């Protein structure tokens, strides 16, 4: 038997207690990832207040300044705008888009997965075929097509990413829920006449929250990457609003003369994506039902 914790510290989602947290903390890469993400987020949202320039300030005399010239820590771009300032405000957009897209796609995926897994039968067949149909679309082209027809704004990009990336969550959740629905506590709830929404939301969902969190973390990484793709190809966030993707787009013609233009946002994207992937790995190990009693 495990030690009995003080009742005051109990939460409904007992998953966040004790051994699992410790297990996550021992996962070194995941901890590094988590710290990096915290650092990146703080830098993007509070960094601009520490800089003397804003992201739209044009200083034509200081065009193409390499990093560490004067007060331009990361240099300037072809219009003489401060790259540090642009990186941070681009980060605000990229991280927000990535995070919001994750929340939306996890919501869609969870709802569809839970309904398909719980009701089974024809609703399962129908919903999972929709998932298959979405999966068999090459999502980049789908996104580019959508982005070409719809007015590209951060909200629209977020929606497009969410709509094209919920399928994996749906599949994971469907399988997990199917397993939980066949367990007797679900039958017991049905037997007292608990309504379906209650059984799905209160009985089953807390038991599948682990895999959902893991999938969600990995989805953030993918969403950031997707946003960078579309913006790099010019269909995403439109200048002068900066995003990590369109900063890369602006940089491509100056790769040999001003490589820092590409390196700086590139490093930011890589850091964010790998960090989220590491966190996902760590969570997967920590929340795996078999790994902790």
């Amino acid at each position: 038997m495990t030690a009995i914790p003080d009742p005051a510290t109990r939460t409904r989602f007992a998953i966040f207690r004790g051994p699992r947290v410790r297990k996550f903390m021992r996962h070194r890469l995941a901890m590094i990832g988590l710290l990096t993400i915290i650092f990146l987020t703080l830098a993007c949202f509070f960094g601009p207040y520490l800089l003397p320039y804003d992201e739209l300030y044009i200083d034509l005399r200081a065009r193409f300044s390499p990093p560490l010239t004067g007060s331009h820590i990361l240099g300037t771009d072809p219009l003489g705008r401060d790259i540090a300032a642009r990186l941070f405000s681009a980060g605000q957009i990229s991280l927000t888009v990535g995070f919001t897209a994750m929340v939306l796609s996890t919501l869609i995926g969870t709802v569809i997965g839970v309904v398909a897994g719980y009701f089974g039968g024809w609703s399962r067949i129908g919903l999972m075929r929709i998932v298959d149909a979405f999966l068999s679309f090459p999502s980049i082209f789908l996104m580019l097509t959508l982005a070409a027809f719809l007015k590209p704004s951060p909200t629209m990009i977020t929606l497009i990413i969410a709509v094209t990336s919920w399928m994996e969550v749906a599949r994971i959740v469907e399988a997990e829920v199917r397993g939980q629905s066949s367990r007797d506590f679900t039958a017991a709830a049905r037997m007292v006449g608990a309504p379906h929404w209650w059984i799905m939301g209160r009985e089953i969902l807390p038991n599948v929250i682990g895999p959902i969190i893991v999938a969600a973390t990995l989805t953030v990484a993918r969403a950031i990457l997707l946003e960078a793709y579309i913006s790099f190809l010019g269909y995403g966030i439109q200048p002068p609003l900066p995003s990590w993707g369109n900063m890369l787009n602006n940089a491509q013609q100056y790769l040999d003369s001003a490589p820092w233009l590409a390196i700086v946002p590139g490093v930011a994207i890589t850091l964010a994506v790998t960090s989220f992937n590491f966190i996902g790995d760590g969570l997967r190990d920590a929340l795996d039902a078999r790994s902790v009693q």
Partner: protein
Amino acid sequence: MSTLIETIDLKQHYPIRQGLLGRPSATVRAVDGINLRIQRGEVLGLVGESGSGKSTFGRTLMMMEQPTSGSVLYNGVELAGRSHTALHPYRRRMQMVFQDPFSSLNPRMTVEDSLTMPLRFHQPALSARQRRDEAAETLERVGLPRSMISRYPHEFSGGQRQRIGIARALMVKPEFIVADEPVSALDVSVQAQVLNLFSSIRETLGLTILFVTHDLAVVGHIADRVAVMYLGQVMEIAPTRALFTSPRHPYTETLLSAAPQPAVGARRQRIAMKGEPPSPLAPPSGCVFRTRCAHAQAECAVARPVLRPRGPGHLSACIRDDLSLVPGVAEARPDQARKRMS
């Protein structure tokens, strides 16, 4: 005594499909035409080997799934065919105790949450505090201290969890309980405690219980009457003592002879059955037991035998009246067993 629950020709068949749009290629006849009456206040034991359909029968009785055909009458009211909502008023009158105490409690819910859950839907007027008090009282009734109410299932042993499962069934104050192999996942020492708990709540609450089990000793201990199932059908029903001392169906005889004997050096004839039970996909014609029966005759294959009275309250579905079958020597009532040993 009046009849509380009655089934009329109850059938639960499961089609087997191959592929997504495949036509049903075969049908599993899990429960195949059961007529059974459960009297108010009695404990009816339902025995049979694995795959005999006894658990499916219990679940169908609880309306966890709609039966393929036939009737379930509760106090004379038809339950089969009722919708989720139309069944709701009956849900609080019948409850179920499950076999596996590890999957029957939600691992993410405290005992309190698990126990108060039924009240949310049946007595929504109660305040959270009243619900909690009820839960604590019920917990004490099943022999657990009320202080354990805020714990999680993983902090309990199998026997304790089973008590919590019983408590949950009692929360809505049901009249009728289906206990689906409630002790077969437990250690023998714990089994006795849980059985005694069943006996005592039955006394104090006047419950009617359908006790599904494969263990004859358990059934002998707790049941007033016993029904024996084989391949989805009832072979024999009799008062417990009559079933043990004078079985009227060859299948019952075989079951009794296979049960372990609690007496040192006891010897008796063992009747070994031939082969495996036939597949419920294609049950034999006529009497489903004939393929393994030592007394089978040609006419056993002709028609399905009906349950016929063979003594006071004793029904058997065997066409042969001429058999003198070996009684189960061990009548599982402990006082009887002791007498025989001395």
